[in-house]
């Protein structure tokens, strides 16, 4: 009898293992992936979600310790080469879009900045809020860690690939940026739209120096807000059969509704 029970338990665990899917990577994607997984698991799935950063997720996919790598940036060329060397073919899927919001302490009277001003602040050329029309207060700039896709996207699109200033404060997660900005008067940082809350103030951004637009789902969808990026899932082609049901779920009407609810921009 014991043997039968053990055998059944073993078969069950193997069957569960065969359908279980692990998602690891972007902290930006994390809240969305969690909500999607919760809804999917209610039906038939067994999806688990962890963060760590886009780079961490992609490295885990390469090492085979996750089934899906979530990323807030595209896979880099050198990462593609590593997959090629390992005989793996990563498949890329855009699951949603995200607007990157620049946030300051609610006590800061500044409510809008140009891209050039943001570049100068994060590269260290502008060090005091009075240089952009604010109070005489030192600017405390917060950034994500280098393994973060958000870090790289902000650098590429807002800083035009210029280096962050040397003494920038690197935070391990978006939540830490929210907390630090909310508690520091001269602080500035950047977070995914879904993380926006009352403790911080999102400022309007202008790329042309004339039109300033606040980040929101509506302004991202109508493409007036300039700092918008796709969010990705990557998986190994050989696992497509296992992954497809969850990917299809995210692409479904229910899945895309969750995208809107979480505060991201749906594909549809």
């Amino acid at each position: 009898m014991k043997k039968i029970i053990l055998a059944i338990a073993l078969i069950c665990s193997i069957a569960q293992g065969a359908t279980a899917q692990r998602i690891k990577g972007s902290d930006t994607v994390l809240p969305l992936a969690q909500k999607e997984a919760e809804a999917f698991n209610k039906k038939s799935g067994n999806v688990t979600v962890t963060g760590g950063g886009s780079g961490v997720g992609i490295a885990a996919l390469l090492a085979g310790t996750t089934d899906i790598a979530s990323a807030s940036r595209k896979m880099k060329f050198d990462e593609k080469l590593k997959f090629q060397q390992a005989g793996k073919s990563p498949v890329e899927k855009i699951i949603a879009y995200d607007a990157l919001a620049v946030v300051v302490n609610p006590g800061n009277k500044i409510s809008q900045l140009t891209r050039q001003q943001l570049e100068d602040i994060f590269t260290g050329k502008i060090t005091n809020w009075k240089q952009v029309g604010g109070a005489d207060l030192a600017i405390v700039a917060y950034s994500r860690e280098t393994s973060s896709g958000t870090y790289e996207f902000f650098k590429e699109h807002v800083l035009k690939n210029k280096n962050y200033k040397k003494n920038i404060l690197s935070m391990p997660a978006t939540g830490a940026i929210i907390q630090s900005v909310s508690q520091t008067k001269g602080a500035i940082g950047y977070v995914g739209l879904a993380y926006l809350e009352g403790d911080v103030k999102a400022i309007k951004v202008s790329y042309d120096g004339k039109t300033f637009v606040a980040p929101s789902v509506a302004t991202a969808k109508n493409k007036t807000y300039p700092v918008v990026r796709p969010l990705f899932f990557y998986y190994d082609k050989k696992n497509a059969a296992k992954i497809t049901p969850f990917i299809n779920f995210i692409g479904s009407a229910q899945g895309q509704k969750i995208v809107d609810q979480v505060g991201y921009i749906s594909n549809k």
Partner: protein
Amino acid sequence: MKKILVCSLLCLSTLTVMAQEVEQTPLEKTQAETERLSSLVDDLSKLKISGYIQSDLQIGQEDASLKVGAGKAATENTFTRFGIRRGRVKFAYSDLNLGVVKGSAVVQLDITEKGVGFKDAYFTVTDPWAGWTTFKAGIFDRPFGYEISYSSSSRETPERSTGCVTLFPDERDLGAMFTIQAPKGHALNPLKFETGLFAGNGIKQETDNRKDWISHLSYKKTYDNVQWGLGTSLYLGGTYQGSAKVYEMSGKDFVAVNNAKIGDYSTRCYYGVDGQFLLSSAAGLTTLRAEMVTGDQPGGLGDSKSPNSSSLPTADTYRRNFMSYNVYLIQDLGQTKHSLVAKYDSYDPNTKLSGDEVGLGGSGKGDVAKHNIGFGYLYRMNSNFRLMAYYDMAFNEKSKNLTGYNSDLKDNIFTLRLQYKF
């Protein structure tokens, strides 16, 4: 006084014993154990062990020289050998937590049925201030061109090109080098400059006073689906003259150099350019690499190999101008694990002689140009296993004035290789 002192010490030791007897709570014990394990894992993660084993089956035509197994027996024509081409184990220790200086040390062994040898033994130190400069000393790849430092475990053909193997035996040399490169993320990071002084004697012990200067300047740019790189190299050195008989080309003849002496040096000078282009598309990854090296190479009558010996040479010296180049093309078959490979490489040890001129005017085997065309197939099974099938067609310069080279030698080689990388 003594008694008081002894009593005090006794009291103190008793207190210590009592303090030790205080029981830790389960949570404290777990925390202490976690800290101990965490520290252990940190220490262990500084040491990385990696390597690869290449087991080859080679079939050679009657004049071929195979890289595995013993040479051809007199009774054999086409011959087949099985063997371990490379059995590498690399130990790399990286101390990333020093905070002041970032250092690392690497030792690599090559273990095959032919014996155990070492390949790398070096340490590196990176400047703690800007992180731009790294100093490296020991035995390591010469900073010349691209093919030398491209790992054999990643290379798509069984061997490097003839020119590379002839000019840079074992790829490595004993020396000290500076690498200057901006940290990742810096606008100047794509630029890299390597420069150093080397013994010029391969991985063998140094045997003379002269040092060779080798430098490589490269630039690499990466986009979403394209990566390209360019490099230029310089080798300035000398080769010890083992006898007073030193010859150089005058017209089509080797003539003796006046006042040549044992212990003087013949100029060993190379100029190189290299380029790489990689494109990722729906057709799969396309890789194109090319390299050209030219310059002055002192050698013997029978070959133009660079020094790689434990003792000073005693043979006569022949100074030659050479030209070497190679082109690799690798095309993945779409998004699959399969690739096709084509390679062409050429090495002309004496650019002043060609065809029937070889064998006259004091020239010999060491002046015969070689060209190789190879085609291969790669199957990357997973991150550990890789299968390679490669056919190398070797062509040599023909001369009716040189015995043994009146026609093309039968020295084509087929290699079937299974590699395990860890």
